[in-house]
């Protein structure tokens, strides 16, 4: 698209390009620095912090992977995220469908109650939730992260799914109802396909949130075999705080795949955020 409109740039446009470029480069540099430092020896990190590694030590990555048990952490994070996100998006879509397409007593009240969750900070219930999960015998299981994780994303997800439902006229659903479809069929065969783009966006945004969650993961899971990546990373960097190359390697292993995934899915991430902020 740009090729066709690429007229010569004016001086002001070059200035804009240059200043934006400098700011973006300076801010992005720490990420690049982290990646190539992961391949250096501790000595090199000390002596020449800016230089590229003299010899690319892939062994750092393997060592960090093994020492930190990053494989387990990854698997735990994937499981928790997949479960929490699918639960949250599915339930929120159902709730948004009910709030916009169905009539039932208490509809407005329920929605209002749900909105409370938009403003509450998670630390405000962390302790009570801890004792509650203990009494439910869920501490140190992945469910201690999945259920609260999904619950805390619900308000925001329902809120946005609802506004998406409101932006679509209910004609299709009404037509299906005239054809004799029951509510369940309407939901699955008419509404879900229609709001699928919004669901996809919510999947992406919730994945970022749940994947990165630290507070609950720190408090509710203390068993090393069940931990998720963010907690694992903080603990790892605490244990090996003097072994710079090892921590850099662990950092690179945990962040680079996410960054690559982000650059692939960039359009969805940004479209999603845009939708959230507009309403």
């Amino acid at each position, binding site marked *: 698209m740009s090729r066709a409109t690429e007229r010569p740039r004016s001086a002001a446009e070059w200035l804009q390009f240059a200043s934006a470029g400098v700011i973006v480069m300076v801010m992005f540099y720490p990420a690049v620095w982290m990646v190539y430092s992961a391949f250096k020896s501790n000595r090199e990190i000390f002596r020449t912090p800016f230089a590229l590694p003299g010899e690319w030590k892939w062994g750092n990555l393997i060592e960090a992977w093994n020492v930190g048990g990053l494989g387990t952490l990854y698997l735990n994070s994937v499981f928790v995220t997949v479960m929490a996100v699918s639960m949250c998006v599915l339930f929120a879509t159902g709730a948004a469908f*009910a709030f916009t397409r169905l009539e*039932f007593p208490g509809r407005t009240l329920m929605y209002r109650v*749900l909105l409370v969750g938009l403003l509450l900070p998670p630390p405000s219930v962390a*302790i*009570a*939730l801890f004792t509650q999960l203990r009494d439910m015998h869920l501490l140190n299981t992945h469910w201690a992260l999945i*259920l609260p994780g999904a619950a805390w994303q619900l*308000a925001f997800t329902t809120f946005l799914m609802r506004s998406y439902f409101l932006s679509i006229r209910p004609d299709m659903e009404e037509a299906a109802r005239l054809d004799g479809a029951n509510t369940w069929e309407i939901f699955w065969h008419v509404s879900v396909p229609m709001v699928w783009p919004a669901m996809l966006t919510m999947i992406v945004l919730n994945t970022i949130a749940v994947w990165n969650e630290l*507070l609950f993961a720190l408090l509710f899971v203390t068993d090393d075999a069940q931990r998720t990546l963010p907690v694992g990373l903080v603990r790892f960097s605490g244990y090996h705080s003097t072994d*710079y190359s090892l921590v850099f390697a662990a950092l690179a292993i945990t962040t680079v795949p996410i960054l690559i995934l982000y650059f692939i899915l960039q359009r969805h991430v940004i479209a999603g955020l845009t939708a959230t902020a507009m309403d």
Partner: protein
Amino acid sequence: MLFAAPAMLLFATFVLLPLGASVYYAFTYWDGFSAPRWAGFANFTRALTDPTFLMSFVHVVLYILATLVFEVSFGLFMAVLLNSDRRGFSLMRGMFFAPVVLSMSAAGVLWKFVLDYRTGLLNSTLRSVGLGDWAQPWLAQPETALLFICIVSGWKYAGFYMVIFFAALRRIPRNLYEAAKLDGANGVQQFFAITLPMLKQNVIVCILLAVTGGFAGFDLFFTMTNGQPFGATEVPATWIIKQAFDQNQIGYGVALTVVLTVVVSVISIAYLKISERGHVTRY
């Protein structure tokens, strides 16, 4: 109603129930194991005379004010700067946003290296340009620790606000700017006369996000300093966790969470009421 039931059930169990329980436990002495004993307002009087807790609110307010500068304002500035169809800008927007998808713990660990006294990127840069005297143990001295946490927070979240403002900028009709140009307005005048008023609604939402998000701030503080040095970066969330889990004073910790909830609710409701007067937010 059946369709709303799973969501409401989940929400009630893991958000509303602990919220209600908090209010009850806040009035008790409780170590988390034996039966809670009624304490009346003792926990609350203690909270209001707990200097660290009160200071933690000062810190979090400073942090929120800083996020308004480093995240919201800087994000707005970058949205304007990166608003171009020219080649390269789309990539730059993508790069600028990238830190948002990283976890706070990864960002915290990474920046601890950047700010490290001996080997950190910042001090190395200063030394290499001959300003070695300026090198400081940034996170280890009370005067600079909080400031640098705010900066890291800005690094992480400015992209988020940039994207929001950028999308809004795209909706401003071009002809407004053309009219302004004909009237002889320069770039800065156009920004204050057109851009800012047109973005009013987004600015209001972003400030609300920054304020509620700021009070919930935990990850970065925990990862980078956990309240150190000398309590200079203690925020409500980190202090609450210490009280409840390191000192086994669940009752007192819960009381602190209730105070936090009340403060956040009052501020956000007041804020929404004020902004609703301009018919700008539609909750």
